[in-house]
């Protein structure tokens, strides 16, 4: 209840000068994250792209199902099935699932995050957010989780489902024994994609006041760096593996290259052809040094989030 000091007409307004600690609600960032996710998930297109990003696993499930049906009825017995399964490197199937999901993930990232800060910049909503008992950390964390969580789930759900299918069905073909640490490694590498995409997208989004331009810029960075790595791959292949060693590393010098490089480095694989097919293939490019690639990924994330942190200001910045 407010009081009127000395019986005068003006109420006690001294609370306005209060600068002590705030009794704040817990998980303020989650309010911001949930709002972003709920808004994004209303878009049917986003659902389509998220589901579409698992296409490799879906096709692989169909391939494995039919291979099982056809080869198990083979009069030659187990031998053809065993030969097919021997060709199939399980961890590489996850590598392909992860690699082929990168392009759809770009779309998911842009749909979720291009306007995350840019739209707030334009509508000056930052002042509204930060006028609540939420600070910059809550805002940035909320926005970051709002992008990272759906990306992580987009990767996690099909990966876990495929792993479950493999573990229950193909244990006798070395699904678990080939690499007992496969699951923990997968769990370690998947958040990396969410971490990188969401951090970079937030950094880019904070630079603009239009989601349209932020999204296009992120797509531009993705594709142009991608084409650069294609160039490096071609250079490595054309030299039949005799080009300077840094070319191999530069092959991973794109957004998806960094993630695929991290995946390869953590899994300890250079990759085999997809779907267990026997195909003549270009020289497999070894994974980059794990410390280097993880260092670059984390460094980019820190720089991007730092940029966003710098750009998030609770006041209307007066120029001129």
């Amino acid at each position, binding site marked *: 209840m407010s009081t009127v000091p000395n019986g005068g007409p003006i109420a006690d307004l001294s609370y306005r000068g209060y600068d002590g600690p705030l009794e704040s609600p817990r998980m303020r960032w989650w309010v911001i994250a949930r709002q972003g996710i709920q808004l994004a998930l209303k878009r049917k297109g986003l659902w389509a792209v998220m589901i579409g990003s698992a296409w490799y696993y879906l096709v692989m499930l169909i391939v494995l199902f039919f291979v099982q049906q056809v080869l198990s009825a083979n009069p030659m017995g187990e031998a053809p099935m065993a030969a097919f399964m021997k060709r199939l490197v399980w961890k590489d199937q996850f590598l392909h699932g992860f690699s082929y999901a990168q392009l759809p993930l770009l779309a998911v990232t842009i749909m979720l995050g291009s306007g995350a800060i840019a739209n707030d910049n334009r509508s000056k909503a930052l002042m509204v957010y930060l006028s609540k008992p939420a600070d910059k950390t809550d805002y940035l964390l909320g926005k970051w989780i709002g992008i990272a969580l759906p990306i992580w789930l987009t990767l996690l759900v099909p990966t876990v489902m495929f792993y479950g299918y493999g573990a229950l069905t193909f244990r006798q073909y070395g699904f678990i024994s080939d690499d007992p640490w496969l699951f923990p490694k997968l769990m370690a590498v998947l958040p990396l994609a969410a971490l990188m995409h969401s951090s970079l997208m937030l950094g880019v989004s904070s630079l603009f006041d239009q989601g*349209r331009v932020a999204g296009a810029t992120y797509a531009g960075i993705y594709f142009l760096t991608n084409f650069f790595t294609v160039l*490096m791959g071609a250079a490595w292949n*054309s030299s039949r593996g005799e*080009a300077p060693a840094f070319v191999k590393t530069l092959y991973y010098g794109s957004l998806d290259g960094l993630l695929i490089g991290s995946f390869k480095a953590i899994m300890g694989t250079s990759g085999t052809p997809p779907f267990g097919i026997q195909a003549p293939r270009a020289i497999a490019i070894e994974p980059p040094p794990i410390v280097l690639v993880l260092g670059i990924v984390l460094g980019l994330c820190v720089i991007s989030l730092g940029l966003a942190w710098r750009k998030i200001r609770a006041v209307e910045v007066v120029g001129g």
Partner: protein
Amino acid sequence: MATFLFTHALRDYLRPKRVVTWVALAIALFAVGKVFMLSSTDTTPAEAYQLLSGLIVFRLLALMSAIFATAIVSQEVEQKTIVYLLTRPIPRWQMLLSRWLAAAVAVGGIAVIAVLANALSTLGGFSPAVARDLLAIVTGAFAYTALFLLVSLLLNRAMVVCLIFAFGWESAVPSMQGELYLLTINSHLNVIAERAAGDAQGVMSALAGTAKKIPLATWQAWLALAGIVTVCTMFNLSWFSKNEYVPREDGE
């Protein structure tokens, strides 16, 4: 009036804050070219120039076109400043034509820097191939911006469509069987640039749009691009003159 509208729009498009990234990217091409020359032991400078040109410079052109062309109207609508433009005593066609020309000039200008950076990096100087590329890139700036402007006038989510066109359609379709390449801008630009087909390897030449020999004469490519620019521009001017554009929130 048209001159003022053109310079007003050009000044907006070439604001330092706006072009600094693009100019930096164009110049970064110089470093990419050097790295590629160092790493690719059996690629000649001419091949390297062509590869970088097809793979990066012309993609950069398409990307810039998407951003600048959608800014011609969509940006004004999203920023709500369209109100100030459309309540002035200027025929709408004149307004759009001036702004489109300014966008094309801005895109072409920055892309020219990218071509020159590539030439300096890989060839170490000027050559007839560079001159042809300059011609193609300026033409491409007009063609892409005209087409993307059309998309932005018709669709709310124009940017997504333009990016898919720039990086998906323009990369994949020129290498497909049959005559689908006729529906791309990149194929025609490759003909104008007289880019040799199939020199580069697999994926790379496919991405550069040079995996297949395009059976078109240079004059046919010119004619096709002129047709694209004319048809798109006529449509854009007519559409913009007849339809309503009122402020709305960013839909992307």
